[in-house]
């Protein structure tokens, strides 16, 4: 067990860095936004990412997995954050692929995992309903009726839900909201009768969907795992996603911070570089300190995800809480230290600011994860 990358993971990271720098730099996101792209990602680049093996990275070996683990995939996410690449990696691979691998039936796995690994199918997880993330609060109802399942309710903030070939819907089939017990997972075809999908435009130029299910009828084959007992697998997969989002945030943070430090060295006021002012130096140094601490937490969270270790949940919350808070702080500081140009659209810093905020809310912010960490530590 180590917090450092092995040679293979290092190679994956380096190749991701090179690929993204040439094929999907920040200007690619800008272009996507400016042409009002309806998909919110570039299928051509996604295909190239699939050729590099990214969507298969963490799949089981029999489905062509690369065997680089979440530590390897996390290193890719960090690079994704550095160039703000728009990819369906999180929803399709980590969330949907993870849930199918973890809880899916043999036929579900055989049907979907190869397509996911090849980048040929997009899936999305429909979980959040309220303004803030909290999986135990799911209310979307699932019940048995005349030998079928029926689903009724509404989901929001479904990342990539507007382009998904299938949705994985988290539904409450028993118990009251607030309970871990009573949750079930269903594989839903967005074209099925009663499913309505509405694209929402997020501030970071990517999209999410609002999904309405009106008495949607499903048969047993749509159920993933045992009814009512989805929480543990869901939480485990969410933790991996939280760690990957934290990795992407680390990339966003380090890139924005690096650009800001460069600006502190270049920009001259009062005849000296502004980076010689101690007030700014200390604030920059404090950000550096937090970045190093986050890097350690993230490495430990990814390591624990790979090992399936006991402490994995607490570490995921640790990493996601710190990444969420630090993303907020670093990007606010980055804007402030750039002065007026920091609030213009010409400068990329604004794009980093926006991505950081979306990632902050994805699967729990600092407040949510401190509360969860407290529970996990037994108080």
């Amino acid at each position, binding site marked *: 067990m180590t917090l450092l990358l092995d040679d293979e993971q290092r190679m994956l990271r380096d190749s991701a860095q090179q690929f993204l720098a040439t094929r999907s730099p920040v200007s690619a996101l800008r272009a996507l936004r400016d042409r009002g792209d309806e998909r919110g990602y570039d299928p051509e680049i996604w295909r190239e990412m699939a050729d590099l093996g990214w969507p298969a990275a963490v799949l089981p070996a029999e489905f062509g997995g690369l065997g680089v683990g979440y530590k390897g995939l996390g290193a890719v996410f960090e690079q994704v954050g550095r160039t703000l690449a728009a990819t369906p990696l999180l929803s399709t691979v980590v969330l949907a692929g993870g849930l199918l691998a973890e809880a899916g039936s043999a036929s579900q796995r055989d049907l979907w995992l190869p397509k996911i690994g090849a980048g040929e199918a997009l899936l999305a997880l429909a979980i959040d309903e309220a303004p803030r993330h909290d999986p135990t609060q799911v209310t979307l109802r699932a019940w048995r009726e005349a030998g079928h399942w029926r689903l009724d309710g509404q989901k929001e903030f479904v990342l990539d839900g507007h382009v998904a070939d299938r949705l994985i819907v988290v539904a409450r089939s028993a118990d009251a909201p607030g309970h871990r017990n009573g949750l079930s997972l269903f594989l839903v075809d967005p074209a099925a009768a009663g499913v309505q999908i509405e694209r929402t435009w997020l501030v970071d130029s990517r999209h999410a969907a609002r999904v309405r299910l009106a008495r949607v009828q499903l048969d047993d084959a749509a159920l993933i795992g045992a009814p009512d007992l989805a929480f543990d697998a869901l939480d485990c997969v969410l933790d991996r996603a939280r760690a990957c989002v934290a990795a992407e945030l680390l990339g966003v943070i380090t890139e924005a911070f690096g650009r800001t430090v460069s600006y502190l060295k270049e920009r001259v006021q009062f005849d000296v570089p502004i980076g010689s002012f101690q007030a700014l130096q200390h604030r920059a*140094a404090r950000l550096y300190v937090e970045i190093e601490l986050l890097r350690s*937490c993230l490495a430990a969270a990814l390591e624990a995800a790979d090992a399936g270790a006991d402490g994995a949940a*607490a570490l995921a919350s640790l990493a996601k809480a710190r990444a969420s808070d630090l993303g907020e702080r670093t990007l606010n500081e980055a804007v402030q230290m750039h002065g007026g140009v920091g609030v213009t659209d010409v400068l990329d810093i604004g794009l980093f600011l926006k991505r950081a905020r979306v990632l902050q809310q994805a699967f729990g912010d600092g407040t949510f994860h401190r509360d969860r960490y407290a529970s996990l530590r037994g108080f």
Partner: protein
Amino acid sequence: MSGIDEFRAEVRRWLEANCPASMRTPITNEEMVWGGSRVSFQNEDQRIWFERMRDRGWFAPDWPSACGGGGLGPREQRVLEQEMLALGCRLPQYNLGIWMLGPVLLEFGTAAQKSEHLPRMARGEVRWCQGFSEPNAGSDLASLRTAAVRDGDDFVVSGQKTWTSDGDKADWMYALVRTDPQAKKQQGISFIMVDMKSPGVTVRPIELISGTSGFCEVFFDGVRVPAKNVVGDINQGWGVAKRLLEHERAAMSKFTEGGAPSLDALVVAAPYLAGGGPVWRDRMAAALMDQHAFSLTARRLQEMALAREDVAGPGSIMKLVQSEQESAKYELLQQLMGHRGLSMEGEGFTADERAVCRLWLYTKSYTIAGGASEIQLNLIARRVLGLPA
């Protein structure tokens, strides 16, 4: 089993057989054993543990055996530390000589200095203090003025040091003195070892806000110190001191990794958290997460060092983070305890309450001593981030 696993098993067996049960409980300030000619033990277990570790050479596990050390490589040393931590073994003694001066003597000392000082140090027979700071030389250490003037085979030292931790209990001091008043600030300084029993040395303790008397003023009035006690070249002491301060970080981590008189925040907090509401819960979680992040960073640094990666950047944050977190921890506990956290002594308060109040005051010095937090931030900004002076 690989060599290192065998070593781990052997270390664990030895510790289990030799570390008395009472030496495997968290240590308090009063229970720390300081090596030196006046070493004293409060009980038999302390003495046994001290002597067994001493005879095994594990006061200085990584020094060569010829110098009285344990001869362990970095990996083995780490294993020893890990096993001691895992079993909750206390440090058998606290010793600035071994942790700070020793590595510098190994690097810069003459053969005569090594054979005179290292073996005695490694047996815990000499207690050292650090004479760097002066009334007008704190963060700006290089402005120090204590003078050492050459006279035959000796230097004659005159001036004043201050904030000298345990100056009244130490046998020897390593000090920075000015040997060339004409040279530029950093250039005329030498690093010298002074026997505290020398005629002309006067020590006066200073009382602290925590009620303890951790440190002293030390006056030198024409003190004769043999020139052979200069470490490194004359007027080159600044470089030696900088090296020594690098070891200070490692020494600090001895205090953090199980060796410090530190309370388990969650255990202490539990009774006061009950019924405290979501705000206290959030603050407590944040504090524990900070600690968690720090210990993971310590682990990452170790792994990077073993993999021979450059640790200068992340290494630079450790003193700052550690000291601020310890201090913040007692701030939080004290506030959580409300008015019950406001007494250091006497009846009507639990031992935890008194300890928190005392440690709240005691840890205030952590962010000042050994390079104040602002100085740490300057270093990070300039050396790591490359921001202009």
